[in-house]
């Protein structure tokens, strides 16, 4: 038992460093996902012609192909065109672009869930479409999207582990490195799994807090116990 504990103690700093990289990857990827996903959703709902077609094509292409393929394409494919991007940045770009496609669909669902009458009332008051989207539809849609988004945060924390394929030293990669030296596969992966569980649970709590904070009084149903 004490041998196990002292082994865990020895790899803790590495796993901690990996955790920080995992958090870093996830944070930036989610942010990129938001920055691209929301406009994509708006283009898909309110856009016409080419703009709408581009948004749909982007979403379906990114959702239709495996994340790992997208990652390898960026890391190994782009250098052939003379574009060399470091591993961590490649991982953030791949995860972010991929998340954008999924987030776009979450935002689309949430925007469509805001009743049509809200847009109608806003336009009747003289707001432009853009104003109505910004001041009336989005503030409600972004609240509605929080449960789905909390899902995306959990996925991202876990799927950022694909970055170990391109030698980014995130949590999973650090576990693999530790095993390479100790050959303690079972013990190491168990501890890595515990790290992920703690991360995902922490994120879920954070998202619950955000949901509560932005709850519209009287509107959302109270949780049934």
């Amino acid at each position, binding site marked *: 038992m004490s041998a196990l504990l002292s082994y865990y103690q020895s790899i803790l700093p590495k796993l901690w460093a990996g955790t920080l990289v995992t958090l870093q990857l996830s944070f930036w990827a989610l942010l990129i996902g938001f920055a691209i996903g929301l406009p994509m959703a708006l283009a898909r709902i309110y856009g016409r012609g080419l703009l709408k077609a581009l948004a749909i094509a982007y979403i379906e292409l990114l959702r239709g192909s495996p994340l790992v393929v997208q990652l390898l394409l960026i890391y190994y494919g782009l250098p052939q065109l003379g574009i060399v991007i470091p591993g961590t940045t490649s991982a953030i770009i791949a995860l972010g672009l991929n998340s954008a496609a999924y987030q776009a669909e979450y935002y689309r669902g949430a925007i469509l869930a805001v009743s049509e009458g809200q847009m109608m009332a806003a*336009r*009747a008051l003289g*707001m432009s479409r853009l104003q109505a989207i910004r001041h009336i539809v989005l503030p409600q849609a972004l*609240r509605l999207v929080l449960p789905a988004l909390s899902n995306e945060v959990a996925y991202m924390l876990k799927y950022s582990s694909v970055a170990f394929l391109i030698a980014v030293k995130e949590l999973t990669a650090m576990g693999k490195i530790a095993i390479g030296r100790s050959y303690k596969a079972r013990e190491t992966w168990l501890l890595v799994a515990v790290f992920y569980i703690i991360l995902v649970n922490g994120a879920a709590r954070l998202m619950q807090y955000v949901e509560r904070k932005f709850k519209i009084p009287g509107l959302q149903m109270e949780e049934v116990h």
Partner: protein
Amino acid sequence: MADTKQEIVRIENLHKRYGNLEVLKGVSLSISEGEVVVVIGPSGTGKSTMLRCINLLTRPDAGGIWVSGVEMTNPRADINRARENIGMVFQDFNLFSHLTALQNVTIALTKVKGMKPEAARAKGLEELEQVGLADKANAYPAQLSGGQKQRVAIARALAMDPKVMLFDEPTSALDPELIGEVLEVMKKLAKSGMTMLVVTHEMSFAREVADRIIFMDGGYIVEDSPPDQLFTNPKSDRARLFLSKIESYHRTEGPPMGGRG
């Protein structure tokens, strides 16, 4: 009657179809300043569609619409600006659910009219006071009753100082005991001289408040008369039939209120 007064709304030969269904088959109408016009008729006869065409929430297929001199149907018209002159109250209230009652009233003042927040707030409170809801300024729509929601919606529309108010079945979604408080606000508004076009099934309101009653059926305006005439001696058989159905349905409610004309 209205010849000397300014024309606020003019509709000429309005047509609208949804797919194969022609909802409006050539509707013309003129409303003068201060007039209260109530639109009645069987459901599905284009009453609400006509209302929504006036502020172009629904785009007409053909015909012309003018509101206080602005040709709404002109493609170059600044529709957003023109809509500031047209207050609209919906059947389902459509209050902005993420905003308080006061914010519902002020948001268009600040974002559309460009008012300063303090000025908008003062104006908003004044409008809520007018509908008897100053004490609910900080309540969210989900915390209000249906009648209160609709009164906030009326205050929200009035805050823009519109030239005309459109009411699209404002009491149809309300529980019976809440209808009165909304009608009271509308009566007060009518007495204050607001130009109003009201689609409703509330015949007592129509009798008491309307200057003219328009009976629509099958996409046409069938009759356009003062309430006394329409209710006691309708010119068309269709209006007669419709009123007799309504009458027998409402008979249990006691004698209708007298008209004022």
